[in-house]
């Protein structure tokens, strides 16, 4: 079983997160240090701007003592940076697996459904694989988490749509223009949101014109957003050149009216024009919308698109949680089958040892006249008989542990009964402790709060 230890946007402010954030090149070395610790046998590290999480398994694989593994993980993480210990959380066993599945599926992200986390989990797994710190437990668990995340992406709309006004504005502009290179953006007025949109479009390769009445303020704003300052007298020329117009002035009336845009149509030669009106009261006359190839979105329009997307994401989160539970069931079957393996191995070892001891006795006594070929044939025959003998009980045991109606404690009783009946305790194989079954899916909320039990190591934990 595995343990997840770390901190995220839920437990640590950015000032703490940035202290522990690791450069990608450092991660293999850190992973090697972790697996050198007494209890940790496998490790991978997810390090993003919103979380640093260590996923580890014990040196004894499924049979490891999880609390010891968790302690080692916390000590290792606390040693990476000062002042992080009280922000760390630890998930063990099934809770850890569920947490990992939810993280990969973007159900634990700051922005539900954001697409980057899946790639980050894949990268973390690959980095650990190359560093040689992935073993049986993580190899069986992390790919399942990735599969769950892929299902969430393909079977739900959790990642569909945009989620903030600036990102909505830029995505809509992209739906109109596609490639921003060579396009001209005009910024009228200042305002945090307007400047963010302008900066995003500027970064995407547009030419940015900042137009205003106050020359000094226009100069400062243009320098801040990387645009070219223009006076108010140049507004008409700027609108002729513009592909996107972002407005956020404090003017009491319309700054751009219908007649102005209608009058510019011939000069603009039918090019599309996208107005992003973020001002209240509005800067753009709503009548301009009736002109062909003119698109006007005001703050209410943007908020509605954002709101619809958020509602849709909250609904989709429930669907995504169901996908996680389904995928967890697959992992659970594997986890429970690991209980059977040591019993089956011990059973086979005991029977084999007894049968071969009897054969050896006979070969030294009444059958000592047999040649090497006959002796080898007898050994093969014994093994074949052993396989046939153990096939039915092995299959039955495996079926029982994967039967969802068969309670965990009954699985443990059955294993103990088999061990006692055939005196398997003498065999040199350990039987792992029973993993608890996953709890039913938590009721997801818009915040995507961690639903499962979680043990915080510090006072600021949940």
């Amino acid at each position, binding site marked *: 079983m595995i343990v997840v230890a770390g901190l995220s946007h839920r437990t640590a402010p950015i000032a703490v997160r940035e202290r522990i954030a690791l450069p990608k090149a450092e991660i293999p070395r850190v992973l090697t240090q972790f697996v050198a610790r007494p209890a940790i046998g496998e490790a991978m590290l997810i390090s993003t701007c919103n979380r640093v999480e260590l996923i580890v398994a014990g040196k004894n694989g499924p049979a490891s003592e999880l609390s010891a593994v968790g302690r080692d993980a916390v000590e290792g993480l606390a040693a990476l940076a000062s002042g992080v210990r009280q922000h760390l959380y630890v998930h063990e066993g099934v809770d850890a697996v569920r947490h990992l599945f939810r993280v990969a599926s973007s159900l634990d992200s700051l922005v539900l459904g954001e697409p980057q986390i899946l790639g980050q989990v894949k990268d973390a797994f690959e980095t650990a694989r190359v560093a040689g710190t992935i073993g049986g437990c993580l190899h069986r668990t992390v790919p399942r988490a990735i599969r769950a995340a892929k299902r969430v992406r393909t079977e739900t709309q959790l*990642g569909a749509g945009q989620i903030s006004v600036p990102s909505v504005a830029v995505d809509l502009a992209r739906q109109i223009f596609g490639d921003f290179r060579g396009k001209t953006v005009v910024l009228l007025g200042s305002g945090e949101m307007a400047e963010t949109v302008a900066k995003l479009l500027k970064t995407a390769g547009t030419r940015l014109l900042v137009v205003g009445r106050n020359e000094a303020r226009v100069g400062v704003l243009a320098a801040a957003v990387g645009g070219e300052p223009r006076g108010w007298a140049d507004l008409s020329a700027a609108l002729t050149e513009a592909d996107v117009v972002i407005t956020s002035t404090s003017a009491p009336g319309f700054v751009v009216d219908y007649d102005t845009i209608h009058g510019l149509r011939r000069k603009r030669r039918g090019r599309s024009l996208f107005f992003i009106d973020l001002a209240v009261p509005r800067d753009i006359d709503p009548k301009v919308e009736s002109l062909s190839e003119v698109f006007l979105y005001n703050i209410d329009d943007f908020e*509605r698109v954002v709101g619809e997307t958020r509602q849709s994401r909250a609904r989709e989160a429930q669907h995504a949680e169901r996908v996680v539970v389904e995928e967890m069931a697959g992992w659970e079957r594997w986890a429970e089958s690991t209980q059977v393996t040591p019993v089956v191995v011990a059973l086979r070892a005991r029977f084999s040892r007894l049968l071969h001891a009897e054969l050896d006795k006979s070969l030294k006594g009444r059958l000592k006249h047999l040649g090497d070929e006959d002796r080898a044939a007898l050994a093969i025959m014994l093994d074949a008989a052993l396989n046939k003998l153990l096939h039915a009980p092995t299959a039955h045991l495996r079926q029982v542990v994967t039967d969802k109606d068969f309670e965990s404690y009954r699985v443990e009783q059955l294993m103990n009964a088999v061990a006692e009946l055939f005196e398997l305790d003498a065999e040199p194989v350990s039987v792992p402790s029973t993993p608890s079954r996953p709890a039913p899916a938590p009721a997801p909320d818009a915040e995507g709060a961690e639903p499962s039990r979680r043990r915080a190591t510090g006072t600021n934990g949940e």
Partner: protein
Amino acid sequence: MEGIATAAFYLGAAAYAAAAVLFFLDLARREGSSAAAVVAPVALGVGATLHAAHVVTASLFSRICPVESLHFSLSLSALILAGMYLILRTRFRLQAVGAVVAPLALTFLIGAQFVGAEQHSITGVSRLLLILHITANLAGVGFFLLAGAAGAFYLVQERSLKEKRPTWLTAKLPPLDALDRTEHRLLLTGFPLLTLGVVTGGFFASRLGPAGGAELLRSALGYATWILLALVLVMRAAAGWRGRRSAYGTLAGVLCVTTVILLYVIKSTGASG
């Protein structure tokens, strides 16, 4: 030879069908990239190659010049449509348009089977001129169908943006500007071919003498298409008519072209029946 032609036909149809399904799956995908996006154009390319093989082998087997038979002409126009799309998609973001092109290619390939493969024979008309006439018209039809698909997608995308109800489906459509540019370039390429078709068609009409009602309707629609598309191009150059108006004009032209093709098919089916 017949066996190869038949096999190429069935395999080509299967590849077109697979491409249509994959393009549709890619269009229906909500987000991110999928294997369908990569495999769909490959399937369309395979379909077009097999289609070409079918046309070549079948026409050799039946000893009919492909452009002199309505059966092969219809088939060829689909081939041109698919080929042009595959070339254009390397330059423009037109993945979604494939969801129209692949089913159209499949429909034309299969639809052509129901039309007689008899050769056109017009007495007193140069065979070379006839081939030129049909080839120009076929290529023009291929271009216009693709331009029509781009125009239709433009209108869907534009409506969604104007109504301020962008959805995950419209977010997957190509950007408005890309659709508009593609449509314009296809019209610019197809228009000279259509002009050649109209001029040579007029020449044939003058040689053949009085025409029946169906021929007159067909000719009228051909001229209407030519005028409509000329108008779209002229107004765009002179008055900056782009986007919605250009898309409506193109779709009207495509409607006329489709009607002309249907009239040919009906006539041919009636003649062979």
